[in-house]
């Protein structure tokens, strides 16, 4: 499989003083049409990593290459689905899906047409003139997915795309994304804290360590789709990766306790309060 997106030694420091080391020399490849999930302990910087791939943020060192060329800023062929959906509340469903094409200067009639087509693909035909507030979370994310697909990207990035949706709806949506992936053959990169979700969707799972995040392991998932969460192989992989993550979680606690550096402690506390729900969910769902 030829590489579509390549990360080579991507590092990220925060603060002018470069004191906060978020990502450390992260390298992995994403093949054409491959579905890659990125998992890691809460607050390890996996969303930052996705933003760097998206060109929304730049690495302190190292680079991200798309079709062999380095990425500087967002690329027209790389699209994104957002955690809180990222819809414009003042735009109707149709207008939201049109947005990317509108920014590309596609004439109105034409972009209306493709927006309708992608709305149909995510099962929202008939909802064109509604406003986001009239839709449920799952439906809003469908709009987000349609918007991401409407610009006909080669790579679709998903930042915790299913985590703000109730579990049953999320499961249905995951199945549909699997189907869209199969049909369109696009490349997908998903960041998630939900381990089952990562395994269910991906061709390979990149496991990151706690901060500074390094690639701890890359786990290929060769199970047949659609995937059965109760399948013994699935369960095994799940347990293996969960074990890796738990190890990291413990490492984090120990390191912070030993070092006792006030700044780090503070950041860690912030993460704990901020991601408390998330960590709980990770433990429960996984």
């Amino acid at each position: 499989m030829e590489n579509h997106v390549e990360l080579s030694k991507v590092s990220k420091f925060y603060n002018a003083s470069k004191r906060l080391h978020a990502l450390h020399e992260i390298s992995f490849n994403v093949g054409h049409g491959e579905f890659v999930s990125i998992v890691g302990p809460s607050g390890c910087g996996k969303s930052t990593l996705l933003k760097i791939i998206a060109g929304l943020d730049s690495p302190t060192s190292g680079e991200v290459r798309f079709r062999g060329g380095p990425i500087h800023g967002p690329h027209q062929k790389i699209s994104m689905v957002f955690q809180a959906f990222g819809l414009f509340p003042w735009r109707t469903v149709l207008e939201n899906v049109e947005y990317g094409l509108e920014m590309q200067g596609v004439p109105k009639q034409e972009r209306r047409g493709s927006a309708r087509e992608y709305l149909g693909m995510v099962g929202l035909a008939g909802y064109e003139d509604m406003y986001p507030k009239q839709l449920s979370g799952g439906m809003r994310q469908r709009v987000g997915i349609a918007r991401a697909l409407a610009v006909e990207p080669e790579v679709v990035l998903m930042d915790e795309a299913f985590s703000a949706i109730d579990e049953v709806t999320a499961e249905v949506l995951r199945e549909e994304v699997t189907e869209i992936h199969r049909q369109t053959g696009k490349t997908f990169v998903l960041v998630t804290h939900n381990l089952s979700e990562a395994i269910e969707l991906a061709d390979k799972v990149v496991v990151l360590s706690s901060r500074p995040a390094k690639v701890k392991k890359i786990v290929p998932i060769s199970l047949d789709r659609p995937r059965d969460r109760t399948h013994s192989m699935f369960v095994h992989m799940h347990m293996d990766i969960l074990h890796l993550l738990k190890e990291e979680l413990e490492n984090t606690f120990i390191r912070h306790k030993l070092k006792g550096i006030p700044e780090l402690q503070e950041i860690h506390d912030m993460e704990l309060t901020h991601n408390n729900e998330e960590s709980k969910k990770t433990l429960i769902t996984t």
Partner: protein
Amino acid sequence: MSVEKQKAIALSMTEMVFSGNRFANYLWIFPLAFGFAVWEIVTRIGLVPSSNLPTFSSVLVVFLASIQNQTFLLRIGYSFMNLVCGLLLAFSIALPLAFVAGSKNNFDLTLTPIIMLFGALPDLSFLPLLVLWLGPGSAAAVIMASVAGFFPIYFTVREGTRSIPRELFEVTSIFKSDRFSTFTKMVLPAISPHMFSGLRLAYDFAWEIIIAIEIATRMAGIGDFIDGNVSSGSLASGFAAILAIAIVAIVVDRAFFGSLESWTKRWA
């Protein structure tokens, strides 16, 4: 007729009166009419001397005559134009400043404390200086109205800008929106609910300031008209002018700001 049926009818009738849109939207007419009636009665029976308060009916008569009088209408128009120019000036200065303050923290820390300082001063305290520099004309009135309107617009737009989720900026970046489209197609609609309430407040403040200036500086306008008539004893004319201002203020408020807000209510 069964009791249940009667109850049901009574219930539906109360619903019609109190929650049916048709009637409920005009319920305010009742207390208003009651107030006018009390006014009419206390002046008719001489409870309040007519030198202090003319009868409501005489005010209505003068009002109806006044609104056919060109100078009267011109005075209102003059005040209104000063107000609108002042608000436009305030808006065009406050919007960009507030937007930058809302998005750039250092700029906010540099500018906002100073704006708060000026905002704490009573606006009218600048008036004598302005009149000294510019004379008692439209220029002074426009500037005063813009000063009064500046603060609510600045603070609401700043707050609106700050409350735009970071994610929406990322959306504009991902879909390669240029700076101009980001502002017109994302920031402006996103802050519009805040901005509209700021404008509405600015409009209220500006009316007060305009009338106060006209009275204080005897500048031609409806405020001066009220002052002149009241001091010369024609209270009914004064009240007629107040009534006219109230109508202009309310109609603009309902028609302009009401329609802006009904747009935001559709999606917000």
